[in-house]
């Protein structure tokens, strides 16, 4: 039992209630033909929404009772932010820049977030890995990956 009301627990409880409401609203808004009325596509979403509502309320109750244990240990939010941002930038750069440059950027961001400061080593390994993945998958497995700015050169 902790001494303070857990803010994380509060947000998780509220988040669950919001998801429950969204699923419930979506289910109510469905226009279901009469033939399917009894065992139609609405029953399960309503059950899931109700379940999420219940666990959401129960989470809030345990938080209010200060009975929401959270693992201690200091969280490096900066490193977390760098990696999350790296992934987000990667998915935005993939089409315009191409698989290899975007992948290299992701590789560098992830290894930086995990504490590596050997930029040259990481850059070379990253470049080799991403290029090998690109050629392996496009040439041998027949996948289509965006060439981007390297279009024509590759």
């Amino acid at each position, binding site marked *: 039992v902790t001494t303070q009301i857990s803010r994380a627990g509060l947000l998780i409880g509220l988040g669950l209630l919001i998801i429950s409401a969204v699923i419930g609203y979506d289910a109510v808004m469905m226009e279901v033909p009469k033939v399917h009325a*009894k065992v*139609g596509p609405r029953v399960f979403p309503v059950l899931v929404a109700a379940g999420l509502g219940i666990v959401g309320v129960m989470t809030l109750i345990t938080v209010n009772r200060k009975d929401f244990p959270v693992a201690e240990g200091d969280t490096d939010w900066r490193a977390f932010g760098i990696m999350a941002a790296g992934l987000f930038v990667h998915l935005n750069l993939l089409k315009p820049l191409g698989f290899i440059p975007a*992948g290299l950027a992701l590789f560098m961001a*992830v290894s930086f977030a995990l504490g590596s400061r050997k930029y040259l080593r990481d850059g070379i390994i990253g470049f080799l*890995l991403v290029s090998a993945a690109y050629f392996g998958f496009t040439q041998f497995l027949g996948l289509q990956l965006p060439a981007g700015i390297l279009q024509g050169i590759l």
Partner: protein
Amino acid sequence: VGAFDALMQGFATAATPINLLWSLVGVTLGTLIGLLPGIGPALTIALLLPVTRKLDPTGAFIMFAGLYYGAMYGSSTTSILLNTPGESGSIVTALEGNKMARKGRGAAALATAAIGSFVAGTLGTLALTLLAPIFVKFALLFGPAEYFALMVLAFTTVTSVLGASKLRGAVTLLLGLALGLAGTDILTGQPRLVFGLPSMLRGIDIVVVAVGLFAVGEALFMASRRDLRSAEVLPIKGSLFMTREEWSRSWKPWLRGTAIGFPFGALPAGGTEIPTFLSYFTEKKLAKNPEEFGHGAIEGVAGPEAANNAAVAGVLVPLLTLGLPTSATAAILLAAFEQYNLQPGPQLFQNSGDLVWGLIASLYIGNVMLLVLNLPLAGVWVRLLSIPQSLLYAGILIFSTLGVYSLSNSIFDLVLLWIVGLIGFLMRRYDYPVAPAIIGLILGPLAEAQFRRALTISQGDPSVFVTHPLSLILLLAAFCVVVGPVAFNRLNTYLAR
């Protein structure tokens, strides 16, 4: 056809050069990913799904099963030499195994783990061979109502036994079920939780969720925890040939670990974690010199390492005969069956006997390959442990995003991956178990289909679930799993007063 004839037929399938090759690929890859922290069998099979779509299903499943077995072998090496488990099934192995390595008995720890895995894997596969035909006969009694009730039971057990609390298990199960709802309803064509986005009509691919929760969530969690980053790899010291004393202290824990692991794998309890813990505490209790536990007792390695391999064999029983996944990896394997339009259960044994029995036979062969790969070649694998964690996770994320993008060449899937990855991070940070989410996602749509089929047959009368005796028993069992422990506690406090 008797089980023996069927198995011999299976050996004929598994022993073809191409299938032997698939088995070798599977066990090698399995050892590799078992060894490397951050990448496990569920994630690897999910990433392989898009690439294996056009493969012969028999070869693909032989590879997947070898991979699942191999991961259990490989992860013990990491636990023993690095003190961080390669997989969750080897968490307890680190307790005694790493202590042994520190005392210069690392080789003996690796040997008892590998031989114990071989013994348990082989005995477990034997039990699978004998039990599968019996389970298939039992499965013939199942109609839609019974299947639905069985899935409800699986949902309740999986939420009750995993994670810090039942509430947290229930939260992730429901989130998994919610993700499974999204997309076009198969029976009516009704779009659900699509929010007007055309890309959402085909639903959320299982690969996106598995990769998001396992790879992205795990990498983000590792970034957030500075204290988990550095670890010391110990060299293998001592002889790989166990002494007479080490043999005599190992063989009973191997057999006990097998006996604990196999049934627990077959129960919907998330696979390997619980039986390994149980095996550890059993060995501690039965040991002649319990004071050695915590300082490198070989029994504490032999038992749990046998238990996790036996559990994997156990997992395959309900998966192949009933289509019921009891662990996250089994859930992904079920998705693989769906990819090939195969339905695990009695029909699979009848229509695709070659595949099932070839798969089971390949496990015997794979176990022998794994013993060779892991014992004499242990020194080669250990070098992989010196890959810096930063490069390891960077590589995992490159292949994860590549795998997800290649599903349908869509950036939208990468956006979903990002969101699911953040959810996966939150689950780890706040101690919510991941396995119920994966099982809910895969089993949810199947449960819904059986639920609606049962109600359609009964013309909308919901009493089918309680008038069919088997369905009633399963639902009562589910009820007991949820209410039982609470009632038991109340009774205990009442009696104590």
